[in-house]
């Protein structure tokens, strides 16, 4: 650690100064030792991080005999797609994927609607109880679903929402983080616009819909990214609510599939690879936005 940080800084101040040679692999000047050490460490670390995933993907193409073979092989000797065909026969991927998509999309849309409405009221209106409502919202950040698992389950049970997609969608929708992020953003929007629209005779809801929402698009995008990642990966809550296979989402279904002793491990790996692919494809398209959005959201 301590050996690494100084060289990092040397490189930083080096690149800020145009007189200093910049590191280019084909350029005439040699790269500084610090830069070489840093690049080596970064690449080695990246390989360490990625390898288990690639290895698991490789293993999903091996036969069961090859998986149990000693000494084990790294690359599949006779790549086979059997694990995929038989894995996807035992595991109704499309069904669980559909459930996951329905839950993720509806919960995110619901979150965006109710969070932005609440954020608008809390940022742009003066009304009795505003401070109290805002403080209540903030304090619920400290009460995650995991801590109130049992009492929330009792509430949805009394509403008959166990084993229904509504039970997965509604309870986690009112995220305090979303209200907070959107409120901070809306505070920065000028009040004059709202006043001008009122003078022109626009109704309160119309102002929200036509002026506030379009202007809040960057903050809405951040909340949407968070919501999609949370809902897509949600496990504990769906594990409790979706006891029936017909409403299970991908994480719950995979965990259940993986816990069956009779299913060979390379089939489980094959199914896992199939579930990772859509997310990685989406990420590759939106990498810049997602990373910027996550960083922005966490700091605030």
């Amino acid at each position: 650690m301590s050996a690494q940080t100084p060289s990092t800084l040397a490189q930083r101040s080096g690149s800020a100064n145009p007189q200093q040679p910049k590191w280019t692999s084909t350029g005439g000047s040699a790269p500084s030792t610090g830069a070489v050490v840093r690049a080596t460490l970064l690449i080695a670390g990246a390989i360490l991080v990625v390898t288990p995933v690639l290895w698991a993907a490789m293993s999903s193409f091996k036969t069961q005999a090859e998986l149990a073979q000693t000494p084990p092989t790294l690359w599949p000797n006779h790549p086979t797609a059997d694990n995929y065909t038989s894995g996807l026969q035992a595991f109704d991927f499309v069904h669980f994927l559909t459930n996951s998509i329905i839950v993720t999309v509806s919960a995110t849309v619901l979150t965006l609607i109710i969070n932005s409405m609440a954020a608008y009221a809390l940022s742009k209106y003066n009304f009795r109880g505003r401070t109290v409502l805002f403080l209540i919202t903030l304090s619920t950040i400290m009460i995650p679903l995991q801590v109130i698992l049992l009492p929330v389950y009792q509430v949805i049970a009394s509403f008959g929402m166990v084993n229904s997609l509504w039970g997965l969608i509604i309870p986690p929708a009112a995220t305090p983080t979303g209200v907070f992020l959107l409120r901070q953003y809306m505070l920065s929007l000028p009040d004059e616009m709202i006043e001008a629209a009122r003078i022109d005779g626009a109704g309160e809801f119309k102002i929200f819909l036509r002026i506030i929402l379009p202007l809040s698009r960057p903050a809405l995008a951040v909340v949407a990214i968070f919501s999609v990642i949370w809902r897509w990966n949600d496990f504990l809550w769906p594990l409790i609510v979706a006891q029936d296979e017909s409403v299970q989402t991908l994480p719950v279904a995979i965990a259940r599939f993986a816990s069956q002793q009779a299913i060979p491990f390379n089939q489980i790996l094959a199914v896992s690879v199939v579930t990772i692919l859509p997310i990685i494809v989406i990420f590759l398209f939106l990498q810049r936005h997602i990373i910027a959005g996550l960083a922005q959201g966490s700091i605030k």
Partner: protein
Amino acid sequence: MSVMAPARARGFRGWMRGKNLAPYLFVLPNMLIFGVFTIWPAFNGFNLSFYDSSNGRTYRPVGTGNYTNILSDSQFWGVVQHTVLFTLGFVVLSTVLGTALALMLNSQRRGRGALSAAYFLPVLISPVVVGIIWKAALDRTTGLVNQVLSAIGLGSPGWLVDSSLSLISVILVGTWIHLGFYAVILISGLQAIDTSLYEAARMDGASVWQSVRLITLPLLRPTLMVVIILATIAGFQAFDFVYTLTGGGPVGATTLIIQYIYENAFSYPIQYGLASAAAVILFVVVFAVTFINYAIGRRSESI
């Protein structure tokens, strides 16, 4: 007055236009869901911790019985110990590695996009699948890690089956999941630091290490606090990847508090009393730790 009168005459719409009711209607849906699915259950959960039930239908009041039971339950203390060790190891490891990674990535120019994507990959994978992948990779005989270790003559440790190693494996996998996310947060903190400060320090003859210690780390402190608080909360709530990685085993060596609550509340034999008391204790601990972190962060910021 003459402006107000026609507005009032328009009834409901007029009232909306008069901005009296509108804010309440705007907050209503969100607050309704908060109320029904967070605030009411939170109070009810506290209340529930003074009752016991083995079927979820009939409850009998037991006073503070659940708390005295749980505090004398050796399984609970084992779970507390694992959870605290896991959280400590996870917070320290992911903060230190995250900072190192952020400092290095932030000054790397060539190949930065590809490197960031590689470190961010685990964040994208559902934790349940992460558990499955690492269960395969850490398998004693067929796993990737031991294939490499035994090839270089380091034997084949039982990462997931040896109870002295399994918690370490869980800490390492937890760090693997979150590292890229924390690095992204820390990089945005680093980029907010004014680069002219480094120039000034260099001109004043400050050594590189002095700049890191006196400029980077103090100015990064608010961001570090965010990461430490996020990691602490994530640590106490870890469940999903452990569920598929070790299932809490071997012999309960990696059973953390959320799994303890889940099992007492939802799998046989059901002990609602213990689950509720554990949930209240978890809430108090997480609240206290977050508050202390926050207070320390605030105090050092003001210095």
